[in-house]
């Protein structure tokens, strides 16, 4: 029976839904089905096929990386940042995760009629500051205004281009049994800060989004060791989703140790109250690194020496057994599967 399920999990997904629901945008299983069974089928080409954070191609003996991301967040301003920082850092980080040095971004704005100009200026200013902090420039842009009630204030799309100056390949297929899994810091900070900032939970928690550019942290890590196999930023869907994608792509088993997962007490508490698992909650300034076993301590030291990696931890390892499956060893002494979510985490009723 278990083999049947695993086979089915790995089968080419079929999109049977007649309408797009919010689940298709939540980064879990439904999003994957949509991308693979619709977009990949219609747009498929060798550069797109790996579905990596960014596509890599060569032009005049220079390896370039190209990526894009759209940003829709409610509220637009939250403790620790705004949609502006996210739109810059998110795209910068997608480039950083494949080992590229980010160079230039484009920005497209879809603005709702009636949106305050002052807010738009605040967003643009935060984008400018984030771009300077990340050492990149926003060099092209586009503006569209849609009718009132046809958008949530403002949506932003950014695309980014970067250059691969190192001879690295950080795709999941490099992952081998025995490799160690690291995270650069506490899990779930951004997602929980935004959930609390929406204000409908009546929770008072002092939490800030962790939005930050990670290119420097990655450069430090790649300088310190050549044992890095795979990097991913922990965004929508959290660590659980990223690990599942890697386990399925690399056909390896993954074990993580609950007692070593860094989670802020405030995030842990809010998650307990809401019945949400921090493993699925988004970050916007944290990464996961899989490194060769002998590189683990150097990698940990490199991450921890950087401001953005102070709370870095080795949280698990890769194994041969049970390929495709992510298993959590609970602090309680038990074990459980950590699967991808279907859609957004649904809070439990009691």
């Amino acid at each position, binding site marked *: 029976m278990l083999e049947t399920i695993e086979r089915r999990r790995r089968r080419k997904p079929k999109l049977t839904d007649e309408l797009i629901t*919010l689940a298709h945008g939540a980064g879990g*299983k439904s999003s994957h*089905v949509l991308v693979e069974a619709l977009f990949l089928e219609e747009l498929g080409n060798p550069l797109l096929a790996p579905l990596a954070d960014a596509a890599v191609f060569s032009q005049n003996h220079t390896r370039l990386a190209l990526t894009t991301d759209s940003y829709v967040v409610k509220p637009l301003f939250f403790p620790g940042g705004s949609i502006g920082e996210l739109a810059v850092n998110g795209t910068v980080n997608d480039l950083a995760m494949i080992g590229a040095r980010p160079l230039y971004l484009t920005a497209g704005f879809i603005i709702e009629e009636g949106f305050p100009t002052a807010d738009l200026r605040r967003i643009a200013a935060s984008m400018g500051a984030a771009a300077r902090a990340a050492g990149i420039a926003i060099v092209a842009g586009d503006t569209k205004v849609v009718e009132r009630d046809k958008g949530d204030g403002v949506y932003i799309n950014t695309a980014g281009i970067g250059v691969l100056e190192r001879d690295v390949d950080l795709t999941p297929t490099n992952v081998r*049994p025995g490799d160690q899994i690291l995270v650069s810091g506490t899990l779930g900070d951004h997602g929980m800060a935004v959930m609390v900032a929406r204000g409908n939970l009546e929770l008072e928690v002092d939490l800030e989004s962790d939005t930050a550019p990670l290119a420097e942290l990655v450069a430090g890590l790649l300088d310190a060791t050549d044992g890095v196999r795979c990097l991913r930023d922990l965004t929508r869907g959290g660590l659980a989703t990223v690990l599942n994608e890697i386990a399925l792509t690399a056909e390896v088993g993954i074990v993580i140790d609950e007692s070593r997962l860094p989670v802020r007490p405030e995030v842990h508490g809010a998650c307990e109250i809401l019945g949400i698992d921090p493993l699925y909650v988004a970050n916007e300034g944290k990464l996961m690194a899989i490194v060769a076993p002998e590189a683990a301590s150097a990698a940990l030291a490199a991450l921890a020496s950087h401001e953005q990696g102070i709370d870095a931890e080795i949280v698990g390892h890769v194994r041969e*057994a049970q390929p495709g499956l992510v298993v959590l060893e609970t602090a309680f*002494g038990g074990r*459980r599967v950590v699967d991808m979510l279907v859609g957004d985490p*649904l809070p439990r009723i009691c």
Partner: protein
Amino acid sequence: MRFVDEYRSGKVARELSHQIEKLLEPGREYKLMEVCGGHTHTIYKHGVENLLPPGVDLIHGPGCPVCVIPMGRVDDAIAIAERDRVIFTTFGDMMRVPGGNGCLLEAKARGADVRMVYSPLDALRIARENPDREVVFFAIGFETTTPSTALTLLRARAEGIRNFFVFANHVTIIPAIRAILDSPDLRLDGFIGPGHVSTVIGTGPYRFIARDHGKPLVVAGFEPLDVLQAAFMVMLQLAEGRCEVENQYSRVVREGGNPRALEAIAETMELRSTFEWRGLGFISQSALKLREEFGDWDAEVRYDIPGVRVADPKACQCGEVLKGVIKPWECKVFGTACTPEKPIGTCMVSSEGACAAYYNYGRFSRRLETLTT
């Protein structure tokens, strides 16, 4: 985190596990049912089963509030949600429960105004803020959630809010346990009793289980050590030949329950003569409806509810899972036709549902587990 970590100590768990092992009669198989979906969730989330010795099996009972809602009621909810002017509010985990005509998440995609709330009071606030709309709350759950619906109704009346309606689907736990005890397939040694429900109803209502059916029951809290300790207490009763109702969750549960909550329920709701439970069929006096005095807030009075009974899909064995007759993975469609992405049965939807919990968290049985590296 204080008041949580203490109840998740791996060290204490290993000690308890060792104590349970000492109580085993050689060759005997023990089957304990945790009635409550919250316990099922805890058991899988923390891997409690890994700490039970072989021969002690946990059977997951009918106490998942989402799992027991019949398909016809989901269709009724969608019919209300798709009316003009209605804002339909629901707990998050009802969003994906399939009726005969899709789920609320799909109704939302088709244009219905369906909103997720954390409490019926949030629904009442939405009603207050949208006086030109009709706000309906999809009230589901056992005695755990019933008091909050009752208090919300009382507040709606006190504030004179007339655009707020409750679609009542509250169920009661005792008739469900009785149905399981009366089932001819029953082969249980004891019960781990619900925690939150017991904070409301107390421990008295369970006495008949020990007295008339000869099964021990221990009311338990929701942390993994609570569940493990309750399992130990049931096993100890069995070893000592006792058969009683005991309370492991004494830091919260009182023998008499919560009289004010019970009063609020009694003031606003009364028993229905019968109600359909998914998989268990019709059980008499097992659910609540609003009292006539609250007719102005009753969605079933306000709207024409289709009320069409939808038979469970033939392939679905939720009923047998809910009664503990089969384990989730023994169901014909488990993990193949029925998955959390496309659930056929409700047990696959909520993370409290035995099938979803098993699929998401436990998808290797203890016997098949080969954790070696």
